[in-house]
């Protein structure tokens, strides 16, 4: 698949998982594209863990205020009818199950729904920020990422990197397919018609269960 299109393809598919009125927290990068693809009639309330409930559109440089920024530290806006809260209250909203879904990337995810996305020991130690709280408590944890990293498997039988949380991932969406985390393992429910099921299995480090209702991603 054309590299330039991958991120939007994934974001577009993730957008279909969200329901009207959902409170959603988006990780940095790819997940921030998801609101561009919300189906007609679906409005979600974006939460930024640094203290915005109802994040508005990205401001222009003229509109930007040094007092309104998102969890990436960049300029942000608050939507009409939105609210600001402090960090403690913000994570209270997250842990109190008032956030319906979080969409974020992963370094590795495994068939038990374990997630690793905050540290590569000895190489990259950015820290977990709010990710550990978000994935431990959000009702839906959707991983939106490229299926492999330079040909290396990212979807595994067991993560080899330190966990962000265990048994929390509910859905994985990649440019190759959609996988649901079930007690029996990863259930492939949709596939990108540019690939065969064999291609997808070969790019995956654990055995996929193929859904009897397998259908093309759209």
């Amino acid at each position, binding site marked *: 698949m054309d590299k330039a299109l991958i991120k939007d393809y994934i974001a577009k598919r993730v957008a279909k998982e969200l329901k009207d009125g959902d409170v959603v927290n988006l990780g940095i990068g790819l997940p921030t594209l998801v609101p561009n693809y919300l189906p007609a009639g679906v409005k979600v309330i974006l939460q930024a863990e640094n203290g915005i409930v109802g994040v508005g559109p990205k401001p222009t440089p003229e509109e930007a205020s040094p007092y*309104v920024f998102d969890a990436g530290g960049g300029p942000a806006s*608050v939507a009409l009818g939105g609210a600001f809260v402090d960090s403690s209250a913000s*994570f209270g909203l997250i842990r109190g199950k008032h956030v319906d879904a979080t969409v974020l990337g992963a370094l590795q995810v495994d068939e038990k729904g374990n997630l690793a996305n905050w540290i590569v020991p000895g190489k990259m130690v950015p820290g977990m*920020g709010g990710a*550990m709280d978000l994935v431990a408590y959000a009702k839906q944890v959707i991983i939106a990422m490229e299926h492999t990293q330079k040909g290396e498997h990212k979807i595994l039988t067991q993560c080899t990197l330190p966990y962000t*949380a265990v048994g929390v991932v509910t859905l994985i969406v990649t440019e190759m397919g959609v996988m649901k985390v079930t007690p029996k393992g990863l259930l492939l429910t949709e596939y990108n018609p540019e690939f065969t099921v064999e291609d997808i299995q070969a790019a995956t480090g654990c055995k996929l269960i193929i859904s009897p209702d397998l259908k093309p991603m759209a």
Partner: protein
Amino acid sequence: MAKIVTMKEAAGMLKDGMSVMVAGFLGAGGPSKLLHEIAQTGVKDLTVMANDGAKTGWALGELISNGQVKKLIATHIGLNPEVGKKMNAGEMEVELVPQGSFAEKIRAGGAGLGGVLTKTGLGTIIADGKQVINIDGQEFLLEKPLHADVALICGYKVDKNGNVWYKGSARNFNVVMATAADLVICEADNIVELGEIEPENVMTPGILVDYIVDGGKA
């Protein structure tokens, strides 16, 4: 009651080896002018608790670049590459804490609680050496309170009693940090007369603030 002091007087209150909470999110909403003043004093061996390392050479980042910070307790350090460099070189110790737990540990420290029970971090290396407590059949990680010698916060409007009103998403960690230190110094973007902040809109009551410095930003 809060007392208005000069930047120099406030910066001089920090002594070598002190523990210091620094509000702000990637530096935004934090006391950047006061931090710049503290960077000039040469005070050293500080243990700093802050969400992140700010940005290279700016706000808390200036103290980090100067080598004034012995230990940093934070949630995310990826956006200030100096932090990783100093950590890897053994020049600065870094302890990473999940952001929601960080906020709540500070809240606990300022509210007289013995700790926080959270699912965040369960099953990860964050749980190493920490107590897991079973409450009615569910496991929680015990996170202990954080308290500091000094907290450095920043408000948009600060009245002469030290009552604070924060603008936009600048509120972040200011609210909890104001409660959790022996000495609280607040940088004011605007120092206002009593009554200019309606009592209903006070976000940090003045009894928590010891000293006010004029940041003169707005």
